[in-house]
C-alpha cells in the first residue's frame, strides 16, 4: 500500500464528518439520505484501509456487505421520500412532525 494507513483513516474521518454535517444540517430529505450514504462510504474506506493494513480480507468482505446495504437503504429511503413528498408536497424534515 502506497499511502500510509493513518492518511487513509484521516480521509475516512473527514468524509464521515462531512456526511454527518450534511445529514444534520441540510433541510432536505434527499440530502439527508445522501449524507448517510457518504458516512457509510467513509466507513467502507476505513474498512478497506484496515484490511490492507492488517493483511486480512474480512474487511473487504464487510465493504461488499456495506455496499449492498447502502443500495437497499437508498432504494427504500428514496421510496419513502417519494411517498412522503406525494402526501405533503414538501422535502423539509421539519414538516414531518405528526408524532410530536
Amino acid at each position, binding site marked *: 500500500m502506497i499511502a500510509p494507513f493513518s492518511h487513509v483513516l484521516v480521509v475516512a474521518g473527514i468524509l464521515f464528518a462531512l456526511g*454527518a454535517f450534511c445529514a*444534520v*444540517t441540510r433541510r432536505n430529505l434527499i440530502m*439527508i439520505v445522501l449524507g448517510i450514504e457518504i458516512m457509510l462510504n467513509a466507513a467502507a474506506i476505513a474498512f478497506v484501509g484496515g484490511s490492507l493494513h492488517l493483511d486480512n480480507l474480512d474487511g473487504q468482505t464487510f465493504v461488499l456487505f456495506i455496499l449492498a446495504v447502502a443500495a437497499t437503504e437508498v432504494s427504500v429511503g428514496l421510496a419513502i421520500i417519494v411517498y412522503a413528498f406525494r402526501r405533503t408536497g414538501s422535502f423539509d*424534515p*421539519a414538516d*414531518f*412532525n405528526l408524532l*410530536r
Partner: protein
Amino acid sequence: MAGSPAYAVDLTAMIAATMLPFVSFLTILIATRGRPRLSAGLSIGSVTISLACSIALLALHFHLAAPIEFSTRLLASGGLDIPFGFLLDRLNLLMIAIVSAICFLVQVYSLGYMAGDPGFSRYYGFMSLFTWAMMSLALSASLLQLYFFWELVGLSSYLLIGFWYEKFSATQAGKKAFVMTRAGDAAFFIGLLLLFVHTGDLSIAHLDSRSALSGVSPSFLTLSALLIFGGIVGKSAQFPLMTWLPDAMEGPTPVSALLHSATMVAAGVYLFARLFPFFSMSSVAMTVFLAIGTISMLLASTMAIVSRDIKKVWAYSTISQLGFMIMALGAGGYFAGVFHLTTHAGFKALLFLCSGVFIHRYETNDIYELSRFGARRMVIPTVSIVLGAAALSGLPPLSGYFSKEAIMGSLAAMHNPLWLAAGLAGVFLTAYYSFRVIFILLFPRAEGAASPPPQEAGITAGGHAAHESGYRAMAWPLIILSAVSVIFGFFKTSFKDFIGGGAAAGGAAGMEPSWLHIAPLALALAGVGLAWVEFGRKGAKQIGFVDRMPVLSRLFAERWYIDRFYGLVVEFVIDRGISRLCSQNDRKVIDGSIDGICEGTVESGWVVAFLQTGMIQYRLLAILGVLALLLLCFYF
C-alpha cells in the same frame, strides 16, 4: 339435656316467638306492601303467636328453678368463640310476656289509629321488625347477641319516629334519637370489648356468676360497668342523653306508646336488671347509677310540669319513671325496679293510647285545646286516662302505688337519706304533673268552652263511620290495659316470689319504718291536691305555681337548656371544630395532594413534550454528540 322433649318444646316456642315477626316483616316489605289489610293481618297474626308462645312459656316455667340455656356457636376463630342462643330465666320470661302483650295491644290499636294512612303496610312491617328485635333482645344468651338486637331495636325506633317522613321535624327527631342513642351505644360497645378482653366470655350467665369475675380488678369492673351503663343511659333516655325522647313524640302515637314508653326504652332498665349481679359488684358504679337515675327523674318531672303538649308530658314522665327504675336498681332493689318496669309498661302504654284517641279525634296535642273541644265527652278514653294517671301518681289501689312503694322501700334502705328525699319529691311532682293534665282535660275553662271541634262540620258520614269502627279497635286495648293497671298491684307478693326466687333478692327488706307506707301516699295525695287547687276547683285560673315564676318555668320549658347546650356543643365543637378540621383536611390535604399529583404529571408532560420537537435531525445530532463524547471518554 337438649334431647328431652320438654326442652324441644321450649326451643320451638322461643324460635316461634322470635322468628315469626321477622318472617312477617320480610313478607310485608317484599310482598304485601300494596295490600294494607293483608299486611296488618300478617303482623298481628305473628305477634299473636308470639304472645301465645310467651304466655305458654311463662305458664310452663312459672316455678323455674335454674335458668335454661340453649346455645350454639355463631362463629369461632382461633381462641375466639362467639355463642348464639337463648337464655330463659324468670326475668326474661316476664320481659317477653310484657313485650309481646304490649306489642299485640298496640298493633290492634293501630288498626284504628293508622287506618287510611298511605304507609299502613310499611308501618306494620316496621312494627314486626321491632317485635322481632325486642323479643330476641330479651331472650339473648350473650351480651354480644344482645347488642345486635339492641341496635336493631334502635333502628326500628329510628324508622318509626321518622315514619311520617314528609314532615321535616319527624325526620329530624328520628335522626336525633338515632345519633344520641348511638353515643351511648358506643360506650356500651367499648365496655363489651373491655369485658371480653378481660374475661374472654360474654355469656350473660357467665357474667352474672360471681366466681367468673373474681380475678378481675375492681377498678376495671367499675370502668366496664360504667361504660355498659352508657348504653343504658342512651337507650333509656337518662340524664345526659335524655332529650331525644320528647322529640321522639313526632312519631305516630301508638309508636310512642310501644317503643318510647313501655318497651324499647325499658330495654335499658332490662339490661341493668339482666346484669344486676355484675353491676352490683361495683359499689362506685352503683352509686353513679343511683345519682344519674335521681337527676333524670327530678329534671324530667320538672319539665313535665310546664309542658302543654299531652304527649310530651307523658314522654317526660317516662324519663322520670325510668329514672325511678334505675334508682331502685341502683339502690339494690332488684325486685322494686323490675316490678316498676312491669307496672309502668302497663299504665304508660295506657296513657299514651288514651292520648292517641284524643289526638286522633281532635288533631291537636295541646291539652288546653283538647279540653276546650270537649275531650272529656269520650267516656272510655277519659276514664282510662284518669286510671292511668292515678296509677302513674301511685294512688292506691292501682298498680303504680305498689311499685312506687317498693322503690321507696329500697331507697329507704340506703344510708344516705338524700336518695329517699329525692324519691319522695319525685312522687309529689309525678302526682302533680299527671293530675294537672287530668284536671285541665276534665274541667275546660271559659274561652269558647262550647266551640265544636273544627273537623266535625267537615267530616262526611262515611268518614265518621270509619272513625267509629276505628274507635272500637282503639277502645279495647284501653279497656284491657286499664283492667291490668287496676288489678296488677294485688299480685305484688306472687310477683315478688316469682322474680325474687330466681335471682338474688337485693335490698334490705324488713327494716322499712312504718311511716314509709304513708309518706309516698301522702305526698302523692298532696300533689293531686295542689293540682286540684290550681287546675281543678271551680274558679281556678289553671295557672301552675311554676308558671308564676317566669324564670323557673322558662328553665323547665327549655328543658334546663340541655338541648341548647348540645346545640352549642354541636355548633362550636363539632361543626366549627372537628368537622371544619376534617373538611379542611379533605379539601387541602387529600384533594390537594391528588390535584397536585395530577397537575405535576400534566406539567412534567409539558416539559417532556418541549424536548420532543419532531425534527429527526436534532436526534441525529444528539446521537452524534453522545458518540463524540463517548469517544473522548474512551481515549482520554
